[in-house]
């Protein structure tokens, strides 16, 4: 059976592109600052339920990451430090793993300590957030549930620190 599938793919490769089948689907809505962060409730890999709406009143950093994304991996300890430093002031990080399998994420989580919840993402989740078509990608969500900042690609940790500190100042001066 698998040989038949491989043969079918091989034939498809030799066809002119216009002859191959497309699966049309609607483009996701691109999110921007000021939009309400799309609601999600997912079981995290630490055995709890993460409900974004239940975080209202807090500043939430949604960190899309994957085991294959080296800049994302390097950022995790820093996110852990921010979680520890600001948790008393109403700050919450949630990691969304875009790994192709839960096993891969679990392996990574055995090597790196996470002090914040990690949920599994997928293509549907990616589309919910406007299409996660490259990492790193982070959304900073305000106490009212609206997106305060979107950081895509590599950037200095100071940018993140500054954005989070400014957001926290509004809900918890000091």
């Amino acid at each position: 059976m698998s040989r038949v599938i491989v043969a079918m793919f091989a034939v498809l490769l030799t066809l002119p592109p216009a002859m191959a089948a497309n699966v049309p689907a609607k483009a996701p809505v691109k999110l921007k600052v000021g939009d309400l962060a799309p609601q999600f409730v997912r079981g995290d890999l630490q055995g709890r339920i993460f409900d974004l709406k239940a975080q209202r009143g807090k500043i939430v950093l949604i960190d899309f990451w994957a085991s294959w994304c080296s800049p994302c991996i390097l950022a995790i300890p820093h996110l852990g430090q921010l979680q520890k430093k600001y948790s008393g002031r109403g700050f919450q990080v949630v990691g969304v793993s875009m790994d192709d399998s839960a096993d891969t994420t679990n392996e990574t989580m055995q090597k790196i300590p996470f002090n914040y919840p990690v949920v599994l993402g997928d293509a549907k989740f990616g589309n919910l957030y406007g299409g996660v078509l490259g990492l790193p990608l982070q959304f900073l969500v305000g106490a009212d549930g609206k997106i305060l900042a979107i950081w895509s690609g590599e950037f200095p940790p100071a940018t993140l620190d500054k954005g989070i500190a400014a957001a926290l100042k509004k809900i918890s001066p000091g």
Partner: protein
Amino acid sequence: MRFAALIPLLTVLLLAPLVASAAPGDALTIPVAVQMQPAELAAMLKAGNAPPILQVGFSVLYQQAHIPDAQYTGPGNKDDGLLNLKTLVDVLPRDKLVVIYCGCCPWEKCPNIAAAYKQMMAMGFTKVKVLYLASNFGADWVDKGYPVTRGG
């Protein structure tokens, strides 16, 4: 020196093996001469004369959006992905133009593209082009308005 000052260094040292395993290839070794700019491929698609295109990255990204008619091979940083790539292109003449792309993360951090390119070269392909996606597929292809197929 305070211990706190050593934390960033220790962190990098501790994560080095994991990061290394996430990035076995080095896109910076791919010659500029074989890199293809997105606009060039988009023009070929528009003209209806696009070559076979292979996505050598991750499934979750391909499922969301990919270049029309691009075939998914699986990630170039995995043996399975390279094997699929080999099987898929083995039927093609070695002098046929083939485009490979990933765009999972910034070019110099991509763990897949260099390994896939090396595989194609090892198989004797002489006209492999590697789509240059500086930041990622979203920023350098989708956001530019170039054509995509949504869904897996």
